[in-house]
């Protein structure tokens, strides 16, 4: 095995491990900030880790109507999300497994995980699973074209669909502040909110049957199965936020593997993701959840923004 391959595997393991380690913190931080905005104390910052540890220690309880599909769902969801972390640049302007594919593989992999989880949700016979799966797939289907167009707009301006190459190209070009970028960013921000199940599209804190989307889909899971779902969802959110900050503001990202640039990159990445998390918190705290049938309007705004971004960049 060549040195490049060893380096890629090592980097992939480190990056996946790092994202897995950081993701619960992001979720709790958003919860905490939200609580502070509501004059509550909020959970301790490490609560996410405590929850996961507790869920992983619990007994596995499953529905007796379910089959292996129900068992496979959370595991495939977790596996695809963790594998997806190796396709995006985080600290270094290179993705560990960028040699295997780019944007389309990333989007496809996340879709595979969603397919697995939605299918598994139909396996318990409970109406909630079906309702959640139906709504989750609906919103994902609506978000997909806007997500793709938004990503295409940045990809085409750099002339590559590979995220590693793309970010390196962006760093070389320097920040452009092209209005097209701002539009594409706004469009993608809406999609990230939709894809990560945040208000105004979905409410991660609710267990009220008629308003749940993602939570309804995973309602029947318990113990270690639930831990996988929760953890993977947190990682997925971190992946989306990282993608957004590195595609539109790759400031401070390391161009080499030396300690100092890496340290700078770590601080820069954490800071940028934190700022975006603040934005997500503010959106969540100042908006009401939209009715399901109003979500298409929000998503079409995003689609329109992405299309405009392409149009003003290239016409």
């Amino acid at each position, binding site marked *: 095995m060549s040195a490049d391959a060893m380096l890629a595997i090592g980097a992939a393991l480190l990056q996946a491990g790092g994202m897995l380690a950081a993701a619960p913190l992001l979720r709790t931080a958003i919860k905490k900030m939200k609580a502070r905005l509501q004059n509550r104390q909020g959970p301790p910052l490490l609560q996410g880790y405590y929850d996961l540890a507790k869920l992983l220690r619990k007994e596995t309880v499953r*529905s007796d109507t379910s089959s292996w599909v129900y068992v496979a769902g959370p595991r495939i969801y977790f596996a695809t999300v963790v*594998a997806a972390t190796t396709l995006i640049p985080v600290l270094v302007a290179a993705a560990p497994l960028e040699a295997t594919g780019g944007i389309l593989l990333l989007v496809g992999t996340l879709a595979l995980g969603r397919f697995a989880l939605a299918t598994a949700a139909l396996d318990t016979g409970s109406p909630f699973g079906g309702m959640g799966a139906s709504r989750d797939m609906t919103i994902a289907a609506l978000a997909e074209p806007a997500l793709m167009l938004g990503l295409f707009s940045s990809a085409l301006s750099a002339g590559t669909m590979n995220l590693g190459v793309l970010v390196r190209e962006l760093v070389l070009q320097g920040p452009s502040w092209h209005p097209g970028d701002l539009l594409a960013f706004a469009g993608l921000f809406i999609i990230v909110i939709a894809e990560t199940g945040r208000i105004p599209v979905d409410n991660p804190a609710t267990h009220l049957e008629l308003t749940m989307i993602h939570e309804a889909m995973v309602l029947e899971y318990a113990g270690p199965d639930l831990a996988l779902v929760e953890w993977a969802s947190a990682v997925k959110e971190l992946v989306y936020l990282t993608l957004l900050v590195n595609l539109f503001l790759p400031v401070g990202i390391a161009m080499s593997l030396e300690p100092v640039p890496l340290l700078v990159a770590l601080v820069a990445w954490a800071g940028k993701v934190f700022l975006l998390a603040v934005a997500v918190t503010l959106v969540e705290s100042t908006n009401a959840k939209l009715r399901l049938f109003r979500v298409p309007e929000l998503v079409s705004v995003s689609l329109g923004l992405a299309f405009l971004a392409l149009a003003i960049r290239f016409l």
Partner: protein
Amino acid sequence: MVEQPMADLVAVAWPAALLVRLLTVTATIALARRPAPCRWVALGGSMAASVLTVTMAAEVIVSGQEVEGVLFQHAASGIVFDYAVTPLSAWFLMVLGVVALPIALYSAAYFAHAVAASRTAVVGVAFNVLLGSVEAVFVATGVIVFLGAWEVMTLATAALVATEYQERANRLAAYLYLVMSHIGTGCLVAAFMVLASRAGATSFPAMLAGDVVSGPLRDGLFALFLVGFGVKAGVIPLHVWLPEAHPAAPSSISALMSSVLITAGIYGLYRVCAFGLGVPDERWALALMFVGMLSAILGVLYALTQTDLKRLLAYSTIENSGIVVLGLGASTMALAHGQRAVAAVAVAASLVHVLNHAIFKGLLFLAAGSVVMTTGTRQIEQFGGLLKRMPWTALFFLIGALAISGLPLLNGFPSEWLTFQALLLGFTATPGLVRLNFPIAGAMLALTSALAAACFVRAFGISFLALPRSPAASDAHESPRLMLVPQAWLAILCIALGLFPGLALRALEPVIVSLPGLEAAGPIAAGALGMAPGISSFDYVYPAIFGVAVLGALVFALSLTARRGAVARQVPTWACGGALTSRTEYTATAFSKPLLMIFKAIYRPQRQVDALAGASPYFPQEVRYRAEIEPTFERYIYGPLVRGVVRAAGAMRVLQAGSLHAYLAYVLVLAVVLLIWLGGTP
């Protein structure tokens, strides 16, 4: 020395395959009174012939050498039945053979249950005639043979659709199929006649050289060919026969129709529309892209709301046909702007999707056939819990569902990935406003594949998971092994071509080189493992290597949750305090309801709820619910068309009143008019 026998074999392979089919048909007829041997002879013969054609096709693709020959020559009339296996024909022949083999094997067991003993011979003959005529369509080099084979193909399919002719719906489906096909064939005959008279020859090499016609006539011919081949390809708005005919036919025949018959239309679009009429016009490319986009998006939207499993798959065929045509459209658009390398990528995307669609749709129809055979119904709402009763069929259907949703690690992904590449490269390569078509098409393709995922989560989840919804589903049992082996073969192909997309792409290279105007910038396949359309490292993908990463993460997930000795506790699902029965499950109709509401401008849903009130209006004795989506094309395009034709026929009846005097008068008037007209010319 080893090369020579192989070349000899290839030279006679197609006549030999045709002979095998003829002998099979004869033997099938002879054995008509003994269903079991008759069935085996018919399908065994078909498999033997398919092996011959696949071998020949593979050899043509590997060597890049065309195989030509003459079947029959009549010196006095000058009629020559010759054939040529070009790389393009070989690709389509290979697609046909790869799915026809497992379908024939499946049918050998399936027909015993699904086809009445007295009809076995008819179905066996039609099966062979259909495959033989599609092969003839692919290798014909003259317009006479081509149209003859085209017509035989249509008739054989109609016979198969009407297998269960006792049901009125099936007879109507066959009739609708015949009418639509003949509208298409009429267009083809007209266009080929113009082309042949201009070229002064009836052979394809002369007619389709690309310099025969020009100007508006060329555009007109393109439109005629587009309609003619579009009917068979099942693109919207010419698709109306497809969702009727597919469910009416026995399931393995539906698989054949979706995988094979549709490709005949696609082949025509390639051979004639895109690469037979000279350098494509930009307007043609726009037409193809528009038709492709429309078919893809409307096909999947209609598929989403179907509750008949086979109708759902039929609409999904329309969607995939649309994706193929979209790729072809992108390629013609690139050709119209002289971008040969981009056109090559788009052609590769479209042709690989032809192969991949044939494989996963064949698989899905076969699995659906197993389900329909054991439950006796096609209604998804009657299924449920089938996974526990037919575990293998469920697994194969799931693999097909994952593949058709374009998810990585299966074979739907590479062709959709390539189509996206073609669209993005097309955007960078074309000038002006027209380039905006590409991102719009890209967004539509993204929406299509995401909706397809929703559609197949629904189709698989509602049919195979949780509790059975009817006695038919709870009594279901697994199909015989003979029906599972073909499904396993197709499922393995789905996985193999998903992990090693380079295999199919490498086979495509000679095909791309052989098409006029295309020029690959470099190999599109990156070894067997990957794809890289090669234009300045724009993008590449190696699914199998990434698959190892996913596998690693999966092992990590398993190790996180695995504990020694711990067995998962099984408890009933919480049903809000009531009993969990199949009536608490989410239904297929409910699953697609949000999308139905969101796209109601397209669906125009109508529903009717009648409550039969008893003593109190608050406790109705019975609630009747009926919901339907408006069949837009049937109602607003074909309805007026049919009414117009019937009215015109009624008006014409005045002329044909049965009076001999009147007829003699017509002849006289015609003679006078002809004399005046022809007499006027010197």
